[in-house]
């Protein structure tokens, strides 16, 4: 068995809009999701996340490239591997006039799962007692829970979740995060597509970031964020003089308009305090700022947007839009 649960190679999705526009939603994407743990799948709206997920699940056809799930080529061997895959793509989709239980029972029936599986899945997401209500009367949070319950009917080895905490209240978000974390720790591989970067950073072990259908970065969250890399925010009365002294001492200093200096390269804040005090400058704020996933994400997607804009201007190739790929 392959150590990678999801692999794509040169995956591409092109289509034409009704107005004849040529859209490239996914550009030769090479994705690798290792077995076990929670893998974040990040990207701005319209970056091709959902299209990629839909291709992996056989809901959309790839224009080019190869995909493998559990080492098996898909969509050719999809029927064999889909028994091991649970997924929620975009918002939950059930028959509105059926009860939550009825919706799950029909899905369970299609894979031959016993009714006790439905009970267990409902209990797992906290919908026991509300399962006999019609789906159309459910709150958004309940709908999300039901969708997650549906994924659990298969006892999956791979769980693909697209914005699973959308619409949940804070307690619900915490429960679902705990559940995802628990599933990851129990050996299930979870691919978590989310816009909530803090959520991904809290829950995920590894992450892939895509923009405009291209892979921008991939790896362990700690590696991407840069373990230990930090800046120090320094507030001082005479900023120009302080910046000059710090730069002379070898630090990188950025003033980004928030009334403070951001100093890179200091191994400890005490070095900055000492240096400035030696020159008669006394700090009013000295805060270590850790680099987070959000800053990495924003930097990567900003760079990609700039690159794509330049490419578009020269090649005239349209890239995916939010509505086009979602």
């Amino acid at each position: 068995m392959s150590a990678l649960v999801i692999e794509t190679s040169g995956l591409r999705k092109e289509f034409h809009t009704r107005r004849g526009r040529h859209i490239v939603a996914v550009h030769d994407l090479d994705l690798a999701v290792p077995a076990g743990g929670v893998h974040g799948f990040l990207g701005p709206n319209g970056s091709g996340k959902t299209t990629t997920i839909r291709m992996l699940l056989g809901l959309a056809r790839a224009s080019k490239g190869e995909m493998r799930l559990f080492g098996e080529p898909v969509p050719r061997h999809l029927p064999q591997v889909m028994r091991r895959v649970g997924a929620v793509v975009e918002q939950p989709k059930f028959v509105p006039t059926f009860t939550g239980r009825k919706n799950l029972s029909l899905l369970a029936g299609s894979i031959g799962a016993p009714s006790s599986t439905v009970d267990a899945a409902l209990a797992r997401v906290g919908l026991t007692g509300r399962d006999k209500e019609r789906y159309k009367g459910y709150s958004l949070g309940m709908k999300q829970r039901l969708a997650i319950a549906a994924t659990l009917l298969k006892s999956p080895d791979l769980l693909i979740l697209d914005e699973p905490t959308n619409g949940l209240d804070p307690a619900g978000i915490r429960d679902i995060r705990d559940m995802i974390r628990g599933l990851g720790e129990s050996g299930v591989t979870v691919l978590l597509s989310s816009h909530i970067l803090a959520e991904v950073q809290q829950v995920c072990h590894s992450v892939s970031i895509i923009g405009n259908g291209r892979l921008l970065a991939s790896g362990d969250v700690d590696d991407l964020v840069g373990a230990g890399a930090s800046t120090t925010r320094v507030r001082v009365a005479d900023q120009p003089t302080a910046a000059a002294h710090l730069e002379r001492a070898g630090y990188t200093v950025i003033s980004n308009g928030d009334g403070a200096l951001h100093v890179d390269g200091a191994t400890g804040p005490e070095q900055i305090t000492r240096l400035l005090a030696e020159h008669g400058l006394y700090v009013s704020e000295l805060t270590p700022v850790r680099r987070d996933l959000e800053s990495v994400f924003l930097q990567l997607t900003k760079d990609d947007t700039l690159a794509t804009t330049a490419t578009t201007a020269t090649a005239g190739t349209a890239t995916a839009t939010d509505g086009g790929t979602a």
Partner: protein
Amino acid sequence: MRLLLVELNRFRSRRAIALMLLAAALVAAILATTTIYESRPLTDSDIAAAQAQADAEAQQPYVQRDLARCEKHPRRFMGPGATVEDCEPNIVPQVEWYLYRPTLSLAEERMDSGLAVLMIVSAVMIIVGTTFAGADWASGSISNQLIFEPRRLRVWLAKAGAVFLGTLVVSAVVLVAFWVALYVAAESRGIPTGAAVQSEIRWMVGRGVLMAGVAALGGFALTMLLRHTVGTLAVMFAYAVGGEALTAALPVAGAGRWSLANNVFAWLGDGHEYWDGTVTCSGGAFDCDQSVVLSLAGGVTYLGVVLLVVVVLSMFFFRRRDIA
């Protein structure tokens, strides 16, 4: 088989479908009740009421005036050869005039209320097949189902099987109940039905049940192709009505062969005779018979080809298309 059972369960559980099937049964019941009631035997009170009505009408001044005129000049009033004896029975209202009520005849009802109930049931089954598929697309639940069973042809076939079997059973129950009601009414009134008529009705019910199932299957297949209930119904309406108008209006020889209605009637009635204005005769205009007979086989071929095209296109596109 497992998928088929799941889809039958889905079919049975859809409230909109249950309501439509109930409506079909209700319409059939109303038609049967109306037919039986309007052909009920005359009672003594019916005769007494008719007699009273005839007597009251006979006292009207204009009746007496006409009677007097007729008796004075019977030939002028009634025409050549009329005598005085002809005046009263033709001018003074008779009790029979107010007692007209048809006798229940299963042979006549076959192509009257029998055909009506069959057409209504088939129309309802088309909507049932359409809404069964349309709901999956409208709710987006089809994508969820495909995550559980990615073999799309199996999913399509299971759903189609559920629609066909479900509508077949309900149509059979409704149509058989309709004819049993008429048969029981005729028997209770001592009206002979005849083995030949019974046999014709059995064949018609059989063909009707099959048509209802096939109509539902066609509605389902077209909706799986177009992915929209209302859009499908609009296309079907345009095909049925627009197609009829086109075959009637086009000055093309034999255009009636392609009329949906003619082919449906040929299927239901074991052949169908229709008028075709484009038929030319070598004899005189008065001797020219412009009727054309469309055989049962012709109707079956036409409807079969239409269904086959829709089913093949539906399966092909469902297998290949991207599901949102």
